[in-house]
């Protein structure tokens, strides 16, 4: 079958765009030289938090507005979305961080020790107050990427590892290569993130927990079976392959401060990659060089890929210009 659209890049952005096009009946091929989703894609290292209200504390309003649709979108595409909200805590002397956060976040509900203990029994003794972001959700990024890929393959999306040798890719090209698209997008930069995966059966958490700290903010996302992902640093560097001792130490220290039982956790994985970002840290659809680029998801891959994919499909299938995240209408 000849594809009307060729999506370049099989990370969260490319898969979401392919899914949205296929769902509307378009013929889609997806090319990723690295094959199935894996450590080469920065979404492989993501936290998988669908946390628009938390992110809204420092991100633009568009991130919140469009991010609110993410949980439903993923669920409708077969992802296991856990809707337990997010718990936000701060250690004693950083209590003021909680006050600032609650002032700036939408839908934050202040809860006390009893309610904390009811939600997360392991944290009840450690924190007298917290913020509960009830509308938020999380998912397992790797299972989600693999699941979506399998689903698309079942729907007839053609996955290839190289572009056809006899010239350019078939149909209209939608370039979702993330940071690899720096070869075409001069204003795209990498923002390095480091993360750690731990196994700690002694602790049970059933929702993402954010530990506010002026210097070392941390989030911890339960992956089930006592496995936790700790994230993430945010460093203005395009470096993709070097987790530093300082960063890992900060993450581990913060986890230990959240609960001392993490001291006995097994370190399963230390991950690092760079997130693709534009100067305003917002994603973009951009037409350039005969392609449509969908890129710049920054730290909001799973949160904003659905909205960006919907906008890309609106644009290429129906000619509808999205209100946000679409930068220019003309070729340049």
């Amino acid at each position: 079958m000849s594809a009307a659209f060729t999506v370049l890049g099989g990370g969260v952005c490319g898969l979401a765009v392919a899914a949205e096009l296929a769902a509307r009946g378009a013929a889609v091929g997806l090319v990723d030289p690295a094959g199935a989703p894996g450590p080469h894609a920065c979404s492989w290292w993501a936290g998988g938090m669908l946390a628009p209200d938390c992110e809204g504390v420092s991100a633009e309003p568009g991130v919140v507005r469009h991010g609110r649709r993410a949980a439903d979108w993923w669920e409708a595409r077969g992802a296991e979305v856990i809707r337990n909200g997010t718990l936000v805590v701060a250690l004693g002397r950083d209590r003021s961080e909680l006050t600032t956060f609650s002032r700036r976040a939408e839908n934050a509900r202040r809860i006390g020790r009893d309610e904390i203990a009811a939600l997360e029994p392991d944290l009840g003794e450690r924190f007298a107050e917290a913020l509960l972001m009830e509308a938020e959700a999380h998912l397992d990024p790797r299972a989600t990427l693999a699941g979506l890929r399998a689903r698309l393959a079942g729907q007839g999306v053609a996955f290839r590892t190289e572009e056809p040798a006899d010239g350019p890719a078939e149909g209209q090209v939608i370039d979702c290569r993330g940071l690899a698209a720096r070869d075409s997008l001069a204003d795209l930069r990498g923002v390095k993130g480091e993360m750690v995966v731990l196994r700690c059966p002694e602790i049970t958490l059933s929702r993402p927990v954010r530990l506010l700290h002026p210097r070392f903010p941390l989030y911890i996302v339960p992956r089930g079976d006592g496995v936790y992902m700790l994230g993430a640093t945010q460093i203005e560097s395009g470096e993709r392959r070097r987790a530093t001792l300082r960063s890992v130490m900060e993450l581990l220290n913060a986890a230990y401060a959240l609960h001392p039982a993490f001291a006995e956790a097994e370190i399963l994985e230390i991950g690092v990659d760079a997130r693709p970002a534009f100067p305003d840290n917002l994603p973009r659809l951009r037409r350039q060089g005969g392609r449509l680029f969908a890129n710049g998801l920054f730290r909001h891959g799973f949160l904003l890929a659905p909205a960006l994919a919907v906008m890309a499909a609106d644009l290429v299938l129906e000619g509808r210009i999205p209100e946000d995240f679409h930068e220019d209408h003309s070729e340049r």
Partner: protein
Amino acid sequence: MPNFYGTEIASRLMLGTAQYPSPAILAEAFRRSGAGIATVSVRREAGGERAGEAFWALVQELGVALLPNTAGCHSVREAVTTAQMARELFDTRWIKLEVIGHADTLQPDPFGLVEAARILVGEGFEVFPYCTEDLVLCERLVEAGCRVLMPWGAPIGTGLGLNNIYGLRSLRAHFPELPLVIDAGLGLPSQAAQAIEMGYDAVLLNTAVARAGDPAMMAEGFARAVEAGALAHAADPMEPRDMAAPSTPVLGKAFL
């Protein structure tokens, strides 16, 4: 206007470039405040192969003087190496020298600072040392060849303002000709105004702006405060006095 190592700067406001929600908001903060100098950290961003270049290019596009720093360095050697790297990256002799002595308070290590300053001045750097308001330390830094001093107002990121007014006044009095910059600890524009009213040449801040709900608006607030402080200083303020002094003569009463 402040003059650092022979370069006149058109603003008394200097801003750090870390912790902003995005580079676009950082640029907006500079635009609205007219800040004259941007400090930029290289230690962590440098990575293996100039991996921070994309961000540094954005900072260079701000069109203001760049002051690279050695933030995050805890030893003389680390600070010196970072300064050398910064000189290469940014093609400037300026270095804001930080040698952190205490991990919790991020308090400067005065001994390491003097040693590192000596080494760097010897290598041709123009050093802006981040120091405490300790007079003896500041004298040593000047002996080492520093021609700018950057005493803290309070520990980095605390927003507590000018913690030791007496010490800072006495520093100003002891070094009447030397450019002095309050670095660190400011949280509100009123605190910046106070520093400039006291005769300080400039203020440097980062967290107070970057972590405000609206960083660009806060940057403008600081810019106006700094301007107010400079006008007040230039206008030769009245001395405070204990007795009330009516500004309108009270006619018809006995002169007591």
